[in-house]
């Protein structure tokens, strides 16, 4: 690793993708992620790649489909309303077993919503988003360096399980500057995968990239195969972090930007003698159900904190499965919760449940 450099989150994720072998980017402008396409428009030509500003997010994601189908490492990025438009293509990409990288710098919704950071696309990201029986692998980084590290490994994971990987960020992560380090070396060139459509050369049998299975038994088989691959990903790729969780009587659960605020809230609570800890999912799909389930058994209460009206909390309830009461503290519309408000709310719970 070379020395650390100050990088804006959006530019860092773009550079990390390039280091990971991304050579093609298709996107459409939307705040708060514009630095990603802007960065790619100057960076990709330098490394022999291509940038296309598409006519819409619908077109952009279908360009991703075409490029991914040739075995290329390809990326798109957007923010909430744009990701909604991309759901058509994401479903087709998943259905055609294609790897790719999608970045969502979430902003407040629904509708046009606002441009301030939010976590209200959790359901969309973790429950497929588009139509059909599929999952994405979704990472929720909490710092610029973590976003870089997850992006560096994203294509390997996407290709191993042949499904799209999404980086679920938000306006804060995209806009903030932090010191980061990148690997000196670019990911080595790799041969085109054995399913890629690049022309049936040297007499090989023609290949097809496809998501249509009109016979129910065939689609059944295909969906089972996809589910099996996601199950494997669930066994191998789940990531999470625990902070002061060993002796925590009150376990906070939060991801991304919110988890940073929760760290400060935990400090405040500890200062007041309340044993608070944090469980932070890094993969929100597959979700670390088992790890959280285990951890919740030693807690007296669980508090989910998120920038939405309550989406992550559903997964927390599934994991905790009644082992402890699950409380919820949410802010929405682009409002970031304050550590003092979280601590206050948490202290209230402690008054009721922990003592």
């Amino acid at each position: 690793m070379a020395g650390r450099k100050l990088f804006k989150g959006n530019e860092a994720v773009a550079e990390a993708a390039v280091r990971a072998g991304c050579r093609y980017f298709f996107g459409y402008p939307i705040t708060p992620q514009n630095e990603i396409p802007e960065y790619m428009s100057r960076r990709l030509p330098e490394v022999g790649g291509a940038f296309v500003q598409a006519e819409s997010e619908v077109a952009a994601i279908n360009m991703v489909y075409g490029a991914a189908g040739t075995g290329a490492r390809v990326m798109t990025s957007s923010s909430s309303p744009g990701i909604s438009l991309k759901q058509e293509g994401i479903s087709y990409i998943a259905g055609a077993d294609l790897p790719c990288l999608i970045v969502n710098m979430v902003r407040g919704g629904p509708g046009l919503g606002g441009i301030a950071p939010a976590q209200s696309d959790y359901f969309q990201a973790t429950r497929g988003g588009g139509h059909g029986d599929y999952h994405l692998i979704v990472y929720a980084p909490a710092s610029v360096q973590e976003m870089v590290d997850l992006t560096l490994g994203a294509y390997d994971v996407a290709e191993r399980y042949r499904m799209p990987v999404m980086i679920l960020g938000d306006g804060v992560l995209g806009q903030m500057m932090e010191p980061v380090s990148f690997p000196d070396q670019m990911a080595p060139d790799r041969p085109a995968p054995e399913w890629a459509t690049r022309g049936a050369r040297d007499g090989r049998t023609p290949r097809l990239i496809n998501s249509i299975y009109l016979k129910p038994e065939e689609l059944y088989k295909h969906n089972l195969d996809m589910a099996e691959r996601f199950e494997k990903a669930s066994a191998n790729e789940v990531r999470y972090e625990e902070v002061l969780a060993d002796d925590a009587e009150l376990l906070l659960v939060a991801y991304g930007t919110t988890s940073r605020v929760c760290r400060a809230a935990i400090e405040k609570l500890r200062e007041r003698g309340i044993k608070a800890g944090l469980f932070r999912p890094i993969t929100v799909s597959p979700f670390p159900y088992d790890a959280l389930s285990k951890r919740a058994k030693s807690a007296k209460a669980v508090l989910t904190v998120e920038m939405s009206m309550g989406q992550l909390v559903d997964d927390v309830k599934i994991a905790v499965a009644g082992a402890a009461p699950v409380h919820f503290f949410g802010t929405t519309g682009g409002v970031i919760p304050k550590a003092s408000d979280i601590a206050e709310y948490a202290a209230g719970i402690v008054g009721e449940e922990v003592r």
Partner: protein
Amino acid sequence: MKQVYSVPKSLRPVSTHYCPGCTHGIIHKLVAETIDELGVRDRAIGVASVGCSVFSYDYFDCDFQQAAHGRAPAVATGIRRTVPDAVVFTYQGDGDLASIGTAEIVHAAMRSENITVVFVNNAIYGMTGGQMAPTTMVGQRTTTSPEGRIKGLAGEPIRVSEMLATIPGATYVARVSTTSPAHIAKAKRAIKKAFEVQLAGGGFSLVECLSTCPTNWGMSPVEAMEWVDKNMIPYYPLGEFRTPEGGQTNG
């Protein structure tokens, strides 16, 4: 004895799912012959669209991707940018290209993507059972225009070739018919020219093929051919609307 005709190698020897008298088959053959004659089967990548030709990948003996409804030009763009020496073509119906996929086709032309579009205009949605298309003729009965397309309600049919010809990036745009041997010979020349434009790196090319759908038009194959000649060609004039040389020919 000299062999004067053989089935194109780029077409698989399988039986077709198209209805009797449907001109999709003729157009497939013209595309396959072109691929053979240009010797590009091993670097051809087709993009199938959503419509009766959704299974066109079963017939063409080359790499293929199946695109979402209307998105074939976007998918082709993704392929084009990643495999520089590929010969990339889409095969799209009029519901696919002229309705749900208008943004994608217009912008592929604007960027002058070096791809070839085979556009099959049969004035109806074939696959879904004969609903009105943007290309349906005024007065033409379909399952969603039971009294015939009404100009005051549904407007008049869109002329895709003329529209695309206004775009600077559209290097080659032609409209052909498939209703007689003479028309088919001209159609073949246009399709070949479109692929040649791509091979020369000339940019976007499109051939609109006036086509029949005897099944959903409720006609015999012969009546359907006559209907194209009588009703479609006067509204959708044949000819080249843009050429790399800048000339235009109608008729």
